[in-house]
């Protein structure tokens, strides 16, 4: 708990809050100011919009503790505000609300639009209001109400340009330049479609040697930071995979069924895993095959498909996982080669994201989930 002092609707308030409490919950739960509504809690719907230090902001994307010393104005704080009175009257006149859930946020944004821009076109109102969602779809009335109030009003004074101090040039310091952020897999040909992907990785080692390594889970697993095999029983593998994508760091625990066909140098795995942190589950299939490449090289063909449920699937931006898998494949190739030659693995890349552990998680197929 931490102590918080701020002004709410002109009243000084001091309270104890948990750092994770966002401003909307603090207003509603602690201060009983329930006019602030929570729709999506991810900044999209706009229902929780309040004024912080005079500017409309998302109270669901603002931690209460971060408002220490701030001046917060929620919908309850506008009873004697002339502009808000005009807007309220116009909302009534133009039937600008049905269920009323979005209205507190709509009014906070509407007041900002009129006071900042003055008389404003319908097109600009619609653009400015795009961050406030009305599920009754009463936009026509809302836009007309705002337009009617804006008529004849002047825009706010233009912003004062901040003074810049003379730039202190650092003595010819080198700028770090990267032509290509990460090397691509050599001759990496890959196909990607939605939640499936095929990646070809060229390895500078003979086919038998590569297959030996890939078919021995116990041999590969120790080289893979983040992946941990806890149990191998017959064809069933149990374990855990930790991955990192910026601030998102799920850890999938689960089990998979593995079959190997040494004659064809082919492996298959199907499994499922769960990350309790994000409450997400992933399941999928993977297959890998080692074939002869040019000049004593081997080519590993990995095919993956995955399904994801839970929170991570709400964040589904499938291209991002595919890009990452491609990126990691290159480093996986390098690391696998190093392992086969008995060399140490290259150091992990910045931000603790080690491509090998990611590609391994791909191979053992719980990664798939996360996209």
């Amino acid at each position: 708990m931490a102590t918080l002092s701020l002004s709410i609707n002109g009243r000084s308030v001091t309270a104890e809050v948990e750092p994770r409490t966002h401003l909307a919950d603090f207003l509603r739960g602690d201060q009983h100011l329930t006019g602030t509504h929570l729709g999506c809690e991810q900044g999209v719907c706009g229902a929780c919009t309040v004024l912080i230090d005079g500017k409309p902001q998302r109270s669901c994307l603002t931690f209460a503790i971060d408002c220490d010393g701030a001046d917060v104005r929620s919908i309850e704080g506008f009873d004697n505000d002339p502009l808000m009175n005009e807007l309220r009257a116009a909302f009534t006149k133009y039937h600008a609300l049905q269920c009323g859930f979005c209205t507190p946020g709509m009014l906070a944004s509407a007041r900002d639009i009129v006071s900042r821009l003055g008389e404003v076109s319908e097109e600009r109102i619609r653009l400015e209001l795009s961050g406030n969602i009305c599920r009754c779809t009463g936009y026509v009335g809302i836009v007309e109400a705002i337009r009617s109030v804006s008529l004849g009003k002047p825009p706010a004074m233009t912003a004062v340009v901040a003074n810049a101090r003379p730039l202190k040039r650092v003595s010819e310091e080198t700028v770090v330049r990267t032509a290509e952020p990460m090397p691509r897999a050599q001759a990496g040909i890959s196909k990607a479609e939605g939640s499936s992907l095929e990646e070809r990785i060229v390895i500078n080692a003979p086919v038998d040697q590569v297959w030996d390594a890939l078919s021995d889970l116990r041999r590969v697993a120790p080289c893979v930071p983040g992946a941990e095999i806890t149990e191998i029983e017959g064809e069933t593998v149990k374990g855990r995979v930790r991955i990192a994508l910026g601030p998102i760091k799920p850890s999938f625990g689960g089990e998979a069924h593995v079959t190997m066909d040494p004659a064809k140098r082919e492996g298959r795995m199907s499994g499922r895993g769960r990350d309790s942190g994000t409450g997400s589950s992933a399941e999928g299939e993977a297959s890998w095959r080692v074939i002869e490449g040019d000049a004593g090289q081997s080519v590993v063909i990995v095919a993956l498909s995955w399904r994801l449920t839970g929170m991570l699937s709400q964040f589904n931006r499938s291209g991002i996982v595919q890009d990452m898998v491609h990126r990691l494949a290159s480093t996986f190739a390098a690391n696998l080669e190093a392992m086969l030659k008995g060399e140490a693995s290259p150091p992990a890349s910045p931000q603790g994201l080690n491509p090998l552990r990611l590609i391994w998680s791909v191979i053992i197929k719980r990664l798939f989930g996360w996209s």
Partner: protein
Amino acid sequence: MKPAAFDYVRARSVSEATDLLAKKEGDAKILAGGQSLTPMLNLRLARSSLLIDIKRAEGLRSLEADGSIVAIGAGWTHAEIEDGAVEDPTRGLMRHVARGIAYRAVRNRGTIGGSLAHADPAADWVSTMAVLGATLVCEGTGGKRRRVAADGFLQGAFLTQLAADEVLVAIEVPRLSAQARWGYYKVCRKAGEFAHALGAVIHDPAKNICRIVVGATDGPPKLLPRTAAALAADRMAEALDGLDREIVAVLPEHEPAAQRLHATAVRRAIAAMSTTMDH
């Protein structure tokens, strides 16, 4: 929809923040405006044992300029850039870009440095700073500063060149000349959402600069030097003709539909060059 518990520290200086980052060894997150991080925390996609709030840290709202560069402190908000509270050295490009980021309520809190450090491939500043040839100033423990070219700052989605103990403190934006023209186009299905494809172009003959970037690629933004060279030589037909091929060359793993979408974004950015001056 509530974040997992975390500790919160309000850093008074960048050195306090970098020391804490170093001490927590990757288990702490920097909180600037929090407009990208907080949704991830609320959804519990991200968890962090410690948030280091740098909003009020000394120096992050600095503004320094000379004849060729404006260095913008990482803590300025998108709305302040939109409103012109920060001098725009790019003949209106930065103000135009700022106005198109999410929604005003988000722009009032979200910061330019936070957006770059968060490194969502679809974020506007990532591509804008790449096309401008800006330089990002990163500070680590002991006040050690590194300057990183913006066009190579992203290594992948949410992955940058920032070391575990580094904070992005300023963005050095080169001044465009009075003859410079720019175009910027992003493909969105709804105003304010993250772009599905993005094109940005700058042509400044006086400074011998012609750069084109294709962004929102799910990975780092890509420069299109061939198309840019044709554009600089005033061979517009050749530039547009070769664009599709260059997009395929820089985004070989994208599906054809995505390649087309990105080519369209760049084509529209080029077409917008003559009309989008000085907003």
